[in-house]
């Protein structure tokens, strides 16, 4: 048809414009006349033999749809709390969601669970994406909370819910305990975990019990304590969802169970270490000790253990189960996880062997002295191969994925301020005399020791001098006490409460005997555990108890004393992180007033020198925990700094003198 149309068009064109066909210049043969004629076009009828052949024949057809599905695990149904709580009137439930924007009020922010970076399968990612926003989830559970979580706490809970390996390193006082308990609660309800072990320092057991009661009253928490048979029963009890135990007890019991496991399997001691708690296979390199089977968990830990996992793979996959008789957990939480900062310590070794699927570390100070301490925590979390030694850059990269750290400056813009003031105090005459004499004698003694001097010798002198700055043991004079009494009179007069920290229990007892006007309470390692909780309760509730005297070792971690507005550092600890922990007992969520921190420093004494070193360390600390610093610089108070506290000179044989310093490569470590 198209050819025909073309032909017609051509014909019309010829007629319309009178175009003449050109006459080719050819020889006259008689045949050329045909070229002058217009073509003749005729139409012919074509008979139809039937209906047109193009019949649309179409039926609706759709290929069968493919679908993909995900069924969520059933969570643990927890019995509702039936007993009415006396304080229920005082608590504030989570506020209902605000209506969407449009009525003048901004829409309430909702916090969604995000899939972790290591969740690769679609099923895993959808599991997290399809969880409800935390705000509505918690509201739906009719969770009664003393305080509505802050937005950053919601973020923390969502992050903890999704991470299988996590280090929550929020600065002290930002609510790590509440975030952890709430995340546990949600994990249990979502069927993600069914059995949890929470390990904490012994003094913090009552604190965790109290916090669980407050934030998750319906969660049954079993504290592992009592004698051996009772503990054995508690470890194996099947229905216990949350087990609470202290580090010492965990180490003792798991050591015992590992030994029994080895004996039962007849594999000899040490064989149990071939698999860690995450099921990662460790390879024992043959050494004389291992060949004779002398190495046990009591030994210094195993530099000869290597992993079969590739060093390139950040997480070794579980290859085989851990020893069968050990209690197994879906999640192990380490509170104050800096306890395992030394990866070669017995505590670290045993804790890494606890069979578990998830690992969570809690600490406000992931680095106390050296960045390398984080490697031990990462090894427990299973994000680095056993015995590997990541450098600073690798640690930084791992931190971005597995560490969540927020500081008060960042998130708690409404937290009352903290004022630090250095109280520079002159020694009393008797103290000054005693101090100068002790320093003179001590330095002479050290100089006489010459090259044989060690850091321990210096420490002894430092401690002696620090004790004199606290009070003169001979006369009992103390200018620090005078200043403290003056401050406490003022604090007590206005009904305030203060916490005082000292390095020595002896100083605390000495102070308590001299501060009876303010009814001091004592809380240190010498107080039996059972009596500690009532002391804190009394300090909170007794209007006449204005002062709590605490040791750094016992009182610096985990306690909530936000009703105290004053903190005294009567003497200084070696590590600024520990001092910060102590201060943050008071400067934390719930604090209504400003917190005034008084650091007592005696003028022209060793305390001034220590203060200078601590300030420098604090600066270094901020650099490492912040971003960008990849220098492998030790943050500990190293041997040079300790030697530098005194101008020590050894006499030479020629009658001269030369400076005494630490011997090179002695490996002396920090205080």
């Amino acid at each position, binding site marked *: 048809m198209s050819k025909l149309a073309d032909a017609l068009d051509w014909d019309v064109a010829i007629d319309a414009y009178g175009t003449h066909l050109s006459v080719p210049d050819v020889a006259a043969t008689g045949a050329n006349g045909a070229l002058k004629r217009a073509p003749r076009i005729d139409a012919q009828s074509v008979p139809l033999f039937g209906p047109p052949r193009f019949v649309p024949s179409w039926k609706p057809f759709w290929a069968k*749809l493919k679908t993909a599905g995900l069924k969520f695990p059933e969570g643990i149904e927890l019995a509702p709390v039936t007993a009415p709580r006396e304080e229920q009137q005082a608590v504030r439930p989570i506020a209902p969601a605000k209506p969407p924007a449009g009525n003048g009020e901004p829409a309430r922010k*909702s916090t969604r669970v995000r899939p972790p970076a290591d969740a690769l399968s679609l099923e895993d990612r959808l599991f997290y994406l399809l969880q*409800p926003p935390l705000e509505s989830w918690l509201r739906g559970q009719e969770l009664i909370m003393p305080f509505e979580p802050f937005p950053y706490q919601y973020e923390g809970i969502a992050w903890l819910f999704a991470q299988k390996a996590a280090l929550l390193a929020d600065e002290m006082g930002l609510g790590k305990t509440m975030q952890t308990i709430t995340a546990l609660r949600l994990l249990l309800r979502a069927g993600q975990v069914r059995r949890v072990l929470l390990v904490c320092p012994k003094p913090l057991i009552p604190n965790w019990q109290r916090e669980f009661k407050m934030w998750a009253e319906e969660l049954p928490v079993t504290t592992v304590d009592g004698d051996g048979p009772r503990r054995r029963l508690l470890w194996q009890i099947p229905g216990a969802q949350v087990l609470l135990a202290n580090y010492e007890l965990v180490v003792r019991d798991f050591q015992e169970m590992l030994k029994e496991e080895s004996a039962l399997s007849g594999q000899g001691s040490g064989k149990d270490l071939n698999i860690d708690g995450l099921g990662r296979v460790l390879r024992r390199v043959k050494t004389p000790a291992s060949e004779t089977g002398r190495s046990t968990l009591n030994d210094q830990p195993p530099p000869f253990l290597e992993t079969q996992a590739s060093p390139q793979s950040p997480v070794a996959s579980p290859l085989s189960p851990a020893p069968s008789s050990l209690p197994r957990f879906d999640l192990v939480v380490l509170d104050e996880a800096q306890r395992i900062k030394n990866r070669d310590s017995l505590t670290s070794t045993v804790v890494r062997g606890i069979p578990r699927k998830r690992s969570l570390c809690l600490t406000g100070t992931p680095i106390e002295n050296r960045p390398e301490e984080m490697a031990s925590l990462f090894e427990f979390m299973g994000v680095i191969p056993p015995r590997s030694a990541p450098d600073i850059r690798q640690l930084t990269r791992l931190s971005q994925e597995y560490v969540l750290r927020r500081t008060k400056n960042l998130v708690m813009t409404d937290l009352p301020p903290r004022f630090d003031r250095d109280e520079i105090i002159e020694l009393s005459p008797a103290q000054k005399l005693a101090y100068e004499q002790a320093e003179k004698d001590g330095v002479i003694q050290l100089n006489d020791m010459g090259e044989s001097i060690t850091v321990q010798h210096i420490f002894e002198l430092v401690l002696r001098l620090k004790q004199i700055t606290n009070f003169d043991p001979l006369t009992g004079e103390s200018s620090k006490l005078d200043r403290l009494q003056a401050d406490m009179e003022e604090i007590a007069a206005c009904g305030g409460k203060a916490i005082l920290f000292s390095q020595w229990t002896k100083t605390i007892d000495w102070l308590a005997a001299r501060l009876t006007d303010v009814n001091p309470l004592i809380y240190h390692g010498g107080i039996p555990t059972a009596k500690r909780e009532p002391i804190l309760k009394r300090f909170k509730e007794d209007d006449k108890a204005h002062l709590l005297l605490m040791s750094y070792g016992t009182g610096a971690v985990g306690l909530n004393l936000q009703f105290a507005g004053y903190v005294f550092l009567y003497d200084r600890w070696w590590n600024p992180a520990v001092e910060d922990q102590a201060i943050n007992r008071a400067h934390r969520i719930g604090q209504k007033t400003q917190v005034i921190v008084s650091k007592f420093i005696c003028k022209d004494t060793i305390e001034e020198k220590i203060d200078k070193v601590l300030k420098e360390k604090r600066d270094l600390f901020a650099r490492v925990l912040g971003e960008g610093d990849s220098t492998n610089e030790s943050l500990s108070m190293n041997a040079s700094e300790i030697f530098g506290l005194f101008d020590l000179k050894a006499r030479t044989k020629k009658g001269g003198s030369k400076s005494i310093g630490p011997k090179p490569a002695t490996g002396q470590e920090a205080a």
Partner: protein
Amino acid sequence: MSGQKTTAGGCLGFLRVLELDGGGFLGGVLVTNQIGRPLEFQCTTPVKPNRTQVILYGPTLAPFVYSELIGKTLFGRLDIKPQLIIVDQDALLDLRLHVPAQVARLANTKDDVSELPDELKLQCGRHHLSFHSDFPQDRDDAAGLLAALPGDADLREPLERVTEALKETLRTNAVA
């Protein structure tokens, strides 16, 4: 996962269909309990009508693809059958013709349901719902079910989760 299909008392389905840039469709349904916790999720692979289907289905294409093709298929695949399916797309209301569960459409504003007779609309908290005109009984049945929800329940939020999940499946497929 057990293969046994169950009808869970009081659970809700949230169904949404996404239209893709190239003209395809992708649907997902999330079943939750009364407090919004997810129980099951099903989604389809993308489906794209060809030119003939577009021409011949005309304006009925969307209701067909949304309800009969995607919605009915997804409902059939669910192990946990919800009693009430919440949607927020007009074309999904016809799903009611194909499944033995009530289907309620979330209206954007009160005005969207103002023209409807009372037996076809329901207010639940701050939400306004409409029902299929062929099933007026659905309103009362759904009212009984929705009465058990918290007063401030956000019925639109689970649909956002469905959207997020569908986008995630697209992203994952794109990567794969």
